[in-house]
């Protein structure tokens, strides 16, 4: 059976996948021997929309950057099995490396199965691990297997999963225990969790069920960002399917184990990714972190023992139970086992979702999988861990992906945001960008975060505006250390990382801003000077017409001049000039 499968994750949809779907559907009309289907995110966001042509389970062709106009040719090719007319949109060998160089466990089904079909999931060994656990293993044995696997929290902190499960298991209550999934993916450059839920929701449900069995939870809650409507929709559908198949509810698969599952949508607050804030939010309150102890394993949601793991962590669980903890632990480094998913973005050629074994170097990820830097420029740094992480400079690109090795650079593993920057990215601007974010997202409870991040943001703002003062770097350092020490929760304690790592590795950029009023990356508008090269200017007057500040004067066919006092540094002249006469100094 020939099948045409369209990748319909959020990225694909944003790139026009639904329009392509419709067009292919129309082109198919009654050609009943060809099936049309959808799948989730394959991870190659840079090639979206992506359309795969399968013969049964065999992938015949992967088509990329598909548009509605291609629909007829695609259908024809699927019908005739003559792909010559669509070779122009077939994926290149080079781009195929993006996938072939990965090792996929958490993402094992993404882009392969139809996320809205439980049958598809079952065909890929879905719910086999759950069945095995419920029928043959005690909760202690499950925890032991997870311990052998070395699985650690993929949300960023890297805390051993078995330890948390065990603590929740040991915790006594007369009420009930809760297993919570943190899908409040807040790092503004990461979308791993969204992709997993959108593309493989059953693997999350199965992982959570195994966890719930291990700790003895009767209720599971998934806390999803409100900004992920498609993920919520697909997970709702998967829950419904699981219920219909006695995979949720009372006496699951006849084992005597009962467990319910609900979704709660967040309402837009980054801090709710912090587990105690998440609990407050689940309880319908302001998402302000609680002081620890008591830890959630002792008193969490509704004051009951609760265990919280993130999506990617759960997505690994069924695989581990199917293949054994040892197989998982065989991958990676001494401290970090298994694989890690990253959202690779920024100035890289091939951006998207990738999964690699721990122990690979950043260079391998960025250059072998990501294809290196887009355009002519040189790589400058890579940012890991978003607002809680840091920038790692190019001379440390041989650092391996490992919790400890990354922490030693001042960055963190993080939940998987990996943003690549080239020479044109201002590192002070980068620090300011993250502090703008953290200051906005601070819950406002503790002094260090509420006022500390605000003050950091203010200092960074004046530096990028060319108003930095002598001593500002030292002041930032003092403030950062204090906030790390004094903030109440992880958000505040890690908020200084983007500042500290950029100061550590790019102090010269800070100095250039403060002492020389110069932005080496030529990104900070306040410090740029626009000048017209008399030799190159033909006096076409276009720049003068475009200038919003009327700062450009000159006669027709004679070189024009920019009045620096009037110039608002918008860059309009530079963009409009056809002769490259506008120089940015």
């Amino acid at each position: 059976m020939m099948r045409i499968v369209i990748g319909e994750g959020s990225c694909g949809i944003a790139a026009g996948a639904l329009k392509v779907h419709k067009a292919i559907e129309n082109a198919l009309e009654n050609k009943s021997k060809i099936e049309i289907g959808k799948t989730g995110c394959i991870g190659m966001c840079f090639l979206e929309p992506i359309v795969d042509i399968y013969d049964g389970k065999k992938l015949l062709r992967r088509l990329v950057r598909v548009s509605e106009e291609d629909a007829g040719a695609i259908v024809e090719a699927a019908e005739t099995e003559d792909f010559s007319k669509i070779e122009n949109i077939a994926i290149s060998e080079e781009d195929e490396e993006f996938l072939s160089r990965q090792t996929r466990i958490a993402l094992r089904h993404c882009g392969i199965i139809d996320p809205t079909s439980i049958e598809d999931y079952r065909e890929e060994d879905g719910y086999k691990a759950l069945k095995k656990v419920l029928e043959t293993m005690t909760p202690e044995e499950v925890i032991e297997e997870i311990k052998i696997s070395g699985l650690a929290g993929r949300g960023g902190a890297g805390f051993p999963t078995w330890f948390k499960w065990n603590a929740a298991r040991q915790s006594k209550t007369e009420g009930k225990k809760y297993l919570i999934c943190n899908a409040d993916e807040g790092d503004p450059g990461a979308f791993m969790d969204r992709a997993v839920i959108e593309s493989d929701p059953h693997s999350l449900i199965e992982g959570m069920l195994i966890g719930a069995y291990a700790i003895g939870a009767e209720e599971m809650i998934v806390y999803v960002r409100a900004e992920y409507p498609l993920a919520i929709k697909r997970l709702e559908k998967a829950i419904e399917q699981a219920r219909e198949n006695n995979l949720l509810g009372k006496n699951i698969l006849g084992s005597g184990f009962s467990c319910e599952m609900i979704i709660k949508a967040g309402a837009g607050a980054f801090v709710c990714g912090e587990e105690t804030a998440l609990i407050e939010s689940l309880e319908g309150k302001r998402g302000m972190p609680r002081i620890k102890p008591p830890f959630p394993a002792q008193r969490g949601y509704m004051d009951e023992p609760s265990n919280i793991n993130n999506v990617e962590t759960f997505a690994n669980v069924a695989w581990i139970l199917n293949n054994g903890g040892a197989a998982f632990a065989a991958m990676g480094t001494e401290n970090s086992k298994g694989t890690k998913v990253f959202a690779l973005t920024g100035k890289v050629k091939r951006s998207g979702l990738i999964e690699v074994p721990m122990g690979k170097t950043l260079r391998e990820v960025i250059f072998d999988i990501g294809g290196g830097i887009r355009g002519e420029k040189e790589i400058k740094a890579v940012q890991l861990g978003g607002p809680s992480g840091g920038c790692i400079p190019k001379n440390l690109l041989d650092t391996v992906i490992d919790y400890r090795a990354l922490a030693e650079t001042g960055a963190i593993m993080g939940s998987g945001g990996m943003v690549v920057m080239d020479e044109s990215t201002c590192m002070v601007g980068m620090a300011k960008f993250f502090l703008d974010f953290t200051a906005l997202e601070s819950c406002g409870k503790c002094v260090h975060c509420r006022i500390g991040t605000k003050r950091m943001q203010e200092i960074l703002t004046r530096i990028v505006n060319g108003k930095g003062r002598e001593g500002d770097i030292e002041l930032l350092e003092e403030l950062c250390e204090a906030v790390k020490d004094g903030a109440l929760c992880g958000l505040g304690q890690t908020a200084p990382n983007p500042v500290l790592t950029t100061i550590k590795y790019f102090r010269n950029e800070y100095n250039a801003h403060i002492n020389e009023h110069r932005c080496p990356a030529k990104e900070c508008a306040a410090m740029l000077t626009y000048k017209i090269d008399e030799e190159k200017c033909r006096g076409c007057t276009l720049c003068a017409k475009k200038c919003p500040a009327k700062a450009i004067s000159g006669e027709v066919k004679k070189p024009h001049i920019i009045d620096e006092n009037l110039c608002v540094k918008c860059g309009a002249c530079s963009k409009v000039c056809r002769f490259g006469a506008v120089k940015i100094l």
Partner: protein
Amino acid sequence: MNIPQSNFKPLEPVLTEYAKIPGSLITILQKAQEIYGYLPKDVIYHIAEKVGTTPAEVMGVATFYSQFRLAPIGKYLIMACQGTACHVNGSERVSAAVSEYLGIESGETTEDGIFTLENVACLGCCSLAPVIMINGEAFGNLTPEKAVSILENLREKEEA
């Protein structure tokens, strides 16, 4: 101020389902916002009464989360992504152009009630950066000029 009293009827099924389930305040507010488009003050009081809490508590929650709005929004909700990938790819200039074209800042609505602009954290379309989303539809790989022309088209459509 003379605010017409909101009609609580559409809210009743929501309250019947959730009011007595502990910890459901955010869910109720989300559903209320779906109904009214925002959270009118009298609705907040009504919810507080039905849930058995104080208006201060409800107000605290409603003002904590960025999803909740205390004023009506425009016909088109423009969400300008401020994610890291968008930042690296020049989102600030896109936001500035949108803001300038509409004459409003983030969180504001144009006087004609057509556009509301909101700068939001990552929309998750990082490989299309920079991105804006208008009423749920994403527009990627933007330049300031492209973004403005999208808005110009919408405005023309409205004026026609």
